[in-house]
């Protein structure tokens, strides 16, 4: 019988060894840490909402204080103001912050989309196609993807910003401005993009170009925080990876969860769902887009900087690579 036990033990060890590739849960109780995370009610922040709601942060010993914003630029601002330890934001505000000399670091991209941004024009303003935006008043939110996307969109239509009348608006002001006809069109993102279309009804014309812009939504932190609490970053990312898996497997539940968390109609959530791709990665999209937008900003004198920064210094790949090497497609 001893031989049988030895053989079974050997087999158990053999088969057991093959199952340690994935990141396994910590074996000992983790020291609890309190962090403040600034994120948005936008669909791009879905993974954060899932991680909070499903307790993935708690599992990692992170007691998360949520700081909700309507859009990413505000979220990043709370990070820069040291009100938050971690923030979620699209790449455009990150780009401007880096150009301003902020010492921040992208630790992961958690969403990417080529169709989240769009321009909604009023048909009654004579807008039938992208080319009709010429000489029109177009609302946008400076320093955000709305800003960059508008330029891309106009370029795609063979127009320049100078041929239009840009009107700076906060995201939450756009719908009213359109309704009030103080602008003819607005460049914005979801959920407002879809909500505005619903409000305008048949008067709305959605103009977008998925071939000229890829939006990324990212998790950023202060580089000082990264250095001070690298373990916290890893725990945060581990929770994000769990949320990614959970979201992929529980689409309906997560949609309801987002509807509740953002006070958004569930149908709207579902309508725009396929626009987004929720993956925790670090790939060429963030780096290339940051550089593209920097060139754009410098050409349009939106910044005083004239030299392209080395954005690799602002993208921290180590933590994510240590947890999921295949998620990191940037090598340096």
């Amino acid at each position: 019988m001893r031989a049988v036990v030895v053989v079974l033990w050997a087999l158990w060890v053999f088969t057991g060894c093959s199952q340690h590739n994935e990141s396994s849960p910590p074996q000992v109780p983790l020291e609890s840490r309190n962090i403040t995370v600034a994120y948005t009610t936008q669909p791009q922040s879905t993974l954060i909402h899932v991680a909070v709601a499903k307790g993935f942060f708690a599992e990692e010993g992170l007691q998360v204080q949520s700081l909700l914003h309507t859009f990413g630029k505000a979220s990043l601002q709370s990070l820069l103001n040291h009100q938050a330890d971690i923030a979620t934001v699209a790449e455009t505000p990150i780009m401007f912050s880096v150009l301003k000399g902020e010492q921040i670091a992208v630790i992961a991209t958690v969403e990417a989309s080529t169709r989240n941004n769009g321009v909604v024009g009023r048909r009654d303003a004579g807008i039938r196609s992208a080319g009709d935006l010429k000489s029109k008043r177009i609302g946008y939110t400076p320093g955000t993807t709305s800003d960059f996307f508008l330029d891309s969109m106009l370029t795609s239509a063979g127009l320049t910003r100078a041929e239009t009348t840009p009107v700076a608006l906060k995201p939450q002001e756009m719908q009213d401005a359109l309704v009030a006809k103080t602008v003819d069109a607005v460049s914005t993102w979801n959920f407002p993009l879809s909500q505005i279309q619903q409000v305008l009804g048949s008067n709305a014309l959605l103009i977008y170009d998925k071939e000229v812009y890829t939006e990324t939504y990212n998790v950023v932190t202060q580089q000082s925080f990264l250095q001070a609490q690298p373990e916290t970053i890893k725990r945060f990312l581990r929770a994000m990876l769990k949320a990614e898996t959970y979201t992929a497997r529980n689409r309906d539940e997560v949609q309801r969860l987002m509807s509740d968390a953002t006070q958004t109609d569930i149908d709207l959530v579902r309508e725009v769902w396929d626009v987004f791709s929720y993956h925790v990665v670090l790939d060429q999209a963030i780096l290339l887009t940051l550089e593209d937008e920097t060139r754009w900003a410098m050409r349009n004198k939106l910044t005083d900087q004239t030299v392209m920064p080395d954005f690799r210094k602002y993208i921290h790949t180590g933590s994510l690579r240590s947890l999921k090497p295949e998620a990191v497609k940037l090598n340096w």
Partner: protein
Amino acid sequence: MTGVRVATRLKGISVLVLLELAVLTPLLIWSIMDFRSARRDYQFADTVRASFYERSGIGDQYSLYREDRFRQQWIESNTTLDHLLMQANVQTREGLEAELTVQIHQNVDDSSDIFQRIVKNTEALKGTTGNHRVYEDLDKRLLSQLFLKNAAVHGLTSDLKNAIAARADRSFQRLVIAIGVFALILVLGAVLPALQLNGLIRRRLLDLHIGARSLTKGHLDYRIPSRDSDEFGELARAFNTMATKLETEILAHTRSEDALRLAASVFTHAREGIAITNAQGTLIDVNVAFTRITGYSRDEVLGKNPRILKSGRQSPYFYAEMWRHLTEKGFWRGEIWNRRKSGEVFAEILTISAVRDSHNMTQHYVALCSDITPIKEHEEHLERIAHFDALTGLPNRVLLSDRLHQAMAQAQRRNQTVVVAFLDLDGFKSINDQHGHDAGDHLLIALAARMREALREGDTIARLGGDEFVAVLIDLQNGDACLPMIERLLTAAAQPVHWEGFTLQVSASLGVTFYPQTQDIDADQLLRQADQAMYQAKMSGRNRHQIFNAA
């Protein structure tokens, strides 16, 4: 477990192994096929990736030079890639790989669209109308997005390859586990029972080994434990039975040996001579007594026929009768005269027995012989005592009577004459008186010898007692023919005899009568006639003879 036959166990193990093979072989084959499928998919993903790279390279060339050749080649390359992706969509399994395949396809399609936009915008760039700077900006934007899409496809194909590789790994692990389980079950189902069986065999063989060794050492009373009904039990019982039989055999053999030893001892030490021949009568063994009796050593007679002992005294008829009896009755017993190696003839009593096999065929003859020469001599001695005078050795009255009767019968047949002479010594009494009986006896012995010599072969001189003798003379044609012999008798009786310095001398008075006579007469009458005639001779002056005269 004990009691189950080894053959049954072996059958059980075989069935178990066959069942394992029947169950596990399909699993093993499935695992192998799964693994091969994963490898094939991996190679296919690599092909897709290579095709994509080719298209990307051509796209890059177009971006650099905006020449139509690259555009055309890009379209061809894109068609190939599209076919591959369509094939991939069909082939790919569900789950992550399917998802990745869809994403790759999507990104490739997106990149195709972007490339087409670039081609279209290139025409605008080459034109002179419109805002040239906007076209340049759009070109950059499109190229940037194309790069992103390509990078995405690059990453996704990597992911797909990794996913397939992971599947291949899992398949391989499953394969290894399947083989492991296969081996484990084989060990549990076959090897362990086989080892157990081996242990059992060794353990049980130990009993048999100990038993066999004990038996070999001669401990035939040892018995191997044989309580189980399996082959070892059977073997042990067979051993035990063999031991029992061996014990019995050896006991019988020992007894037989004792009997043989006794027989050999009897053979060796018997006073009787024993000779053994084969069926053809050739001597194959003799004992010491035989050698002692015949004088022939064992080596001298082995291989020879007993007829070397023939004395020649027995007639061929005797031997024929002997063999006839021996053949018919299986034995012969009798007295026979044989000849020793020294040439001496001796008498022996001989018993010959035929030793026959189960088919009543004679295998051997055993002859037992006793030297009866001394007995014969004793018999002769007794006969002598009965028929001869003890002092002189001359026939006594009994033998005289017998001889006289024979002589009378012979004379009758041959028409011859028998002479009966009665002789009495003169002066013998005075010898006895003067010199004693020893002198008298000596005188009698000497005179008896002389008188016997005085007669012919065939004549008889007998002592009747005291100093009286009777002579019977035969083969005479008439009465007168006896006179010379009568005279020689008288002379012989009158010759002096020397005894211890003395000279002893007597004479004899002799009465003679004849046979036949005119009247029928018997022996006693003849003796009386001779006695009367002797008396007359004495009366006539002694040392003379007197013919009986009936008148």
